[in-house]
């Protein structure tokens, strides 16, 4: 029998970020009782320190750029400057409105008991918070991630910072080094450049956004060069020293960069240390929780979702996994999630968006001779011309088969990924999309044009 202080639930969820709260909301809809344990703020990284604040900064950045370039469109305007206090209050306003909405959803769900506090897995199906034990017929681990650093790189929060600090900076630095040319790195580099900062990205891999299709990286690099965002790729960082007014970073080989501050954006590590996972027998790998494709850990009835599960670290992957596990527990037998079918958007300027396989991966998987690609240049797309953006929509298909990859670069192309997501996941053939002529003049028309071309019937394009 349990202590009077203790409680039992259908599901105990450890962590109230994207993965955890999505699982809680879906479970409650399925009439399961839930304890949702969160030591910080409901909404987690994404809402408070991730997706939302960065995208608010990126939108302020877009407005700064458009104002700066407004004369090209016939609008006479003068950019006076960036008021970081006002930028931050705009950003915080967005967060707090969404936070309130989310609290309303979780608070309004009768089946969810929200528990504020730090939890630890103390039994195979028990999480303890401040001495109180929450027993779950099922447990979902959803403790998320934190900004990593590298050996020899001590984050001081002043001159050497992570995205957490960058999101609350009260000034626009004069110059900055961004260590890491992945998603988070290029997003901050883009924001800062728009705000007038002299930015240099340092990336050990041979190209920016190395997880993307190679042509996407090339197009981004071209655009960044035009924007005068400096980047040095292909060599790892060696050391960092503090200078009188900032930092000096040395790249292997001796090249150095100096700036007012250094943003360390070298990836995110799983928040799993000292949470009792290993002790309870949960199989782990370098801090990540291992699961099968149904998100079951090695311990029966213990599941894991979100950034602690190896793979894409994206909020909507957390949502999808959270919903999946709730449905799985409710016996709904949901379809396994295809990780490649999860859309990926990078919100720098120009934006990148992709779903499915890169050309290289597709060739590896199907054989090089079985893969056809088409690259539709946004130069032929009226709306993109109107926006004065450059880029492309690239399709990867299996010969006589479906589209298995969509890769886009250009201002605002992130919004086209919804359609691409259906095409990839529903295994549509180019001709099936081509048949549906897209709205003119939109950017999504470029997706239509690419499919027309790949189906052998280009409209506003050469074959």
């Amino acid at each position, binding site marked *: 029998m349990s202590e009077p202080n203790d409680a039992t639930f259908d599901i105990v969820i450890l962590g109230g970020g994207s993965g955890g709260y999505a699982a809680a909301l879906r479970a409650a809809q399925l009439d399961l009782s839930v304890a949702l344990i969160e030591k910080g703020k409901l909404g987690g990284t994404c809402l408070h320190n991730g997706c939302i604040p960065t995208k608010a900064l990126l939108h302020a950045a877009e407005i700064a750029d458009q104002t700066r370039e407004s004369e090209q469109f016939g609008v006479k305007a003068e950019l006076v400057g960036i008021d970081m206090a006002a930028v931050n209050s705009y950003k915080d306003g967005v967060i707090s409105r969404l936070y309130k909405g989310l609290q309303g959803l979780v608070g309004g769900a009768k089946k969810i008991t929200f528990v504020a506090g730090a939890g630890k897995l103390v039994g195979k199906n028990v999480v303890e918070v401040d001495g109180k034990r929450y027993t779950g017929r099922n447990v979902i681990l959803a403790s998320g991630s934190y900004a990593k650093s590298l050996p020899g790189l001590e984050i001081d929060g002043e001159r050497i910072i992570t995205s957490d600090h960058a999101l609350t900076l009260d000034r626009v630095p004069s110059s900055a080094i961004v260590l890491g040319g992945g998603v988070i790195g290029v997003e901050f580099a883009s924001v800062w450049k728009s705000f007038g900062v002299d930015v240099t990205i340092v990336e050990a891999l041979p190209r920016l956004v190395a997880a993307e299709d190679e042509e996407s990286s090339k197009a981004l690099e071209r655009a960044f060069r035009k924007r005068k965002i400096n980047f040095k790729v292909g060599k790892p960082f060696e050391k960092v020293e503090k200078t009188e007014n900032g930092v000096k970073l040395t790249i292997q080989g001796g090249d150095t960069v100096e700036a007012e501050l250094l943003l360390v954006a070298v990836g995110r590590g799983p928040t799993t240390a000292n949470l009792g996972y290993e002790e309870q027998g949960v199989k782990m790998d370098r801090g990540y929780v291992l699961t099968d494709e149904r998100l079951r850990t090695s311990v029966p009835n213990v599941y894991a979702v979100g950034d602690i599960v190896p793979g894409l670290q994206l909020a909507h992957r957390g949502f999808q996994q959270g919903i999946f596990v709730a449905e799985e527990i409710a016996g709904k037998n949901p*379809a396994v999630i295809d990780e490649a079918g999860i859309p990926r958007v990078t919100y720098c300027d120009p934006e990148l968006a992709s779903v499915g396989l890169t050309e290289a991966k597709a060739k590896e998987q199907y054989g090089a001779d079985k893969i056809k690609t088409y690259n539709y240049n946004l130069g032929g797309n009226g709306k993109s011309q109107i926006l004065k953006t450059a880029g492309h929509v690239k399709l990867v298909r299996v010969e*006589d088969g*479906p589209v298995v990859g969509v890769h886009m670069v250009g201002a605002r192309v992130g919004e086209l990924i919804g359609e691409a997501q*259906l*095409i990839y*996941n*529903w*295994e*549509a*053939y180019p*001709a*099936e999309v081509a*048949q549906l002529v897209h709205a003119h003049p939109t950017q999504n028309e470029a997706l239509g044009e690419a499919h027309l071309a790949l*189906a052998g019937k280009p409209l506003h394009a050469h074959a």
Partner: protein
Amino acid sequence: APNGNGRPAGGPVLAKPPVRKLAKDLGVDLAALTGSGPLGSITREDVQRAAAAPAAAEPLTV
């Protein structure tokens, strides 16, 4: 040859893309189905029927 649904030769099985995805999720082999939709296309109902009665759909072998 092309057909009234505009699907080219060498194209996918005659079913709308979301129906093909549904079949995949339910483990139904579309190639083994006869479509009851327009021009012999496979409908959602065809897929669900096949998924509900996999054993019955199997031809008896002697």
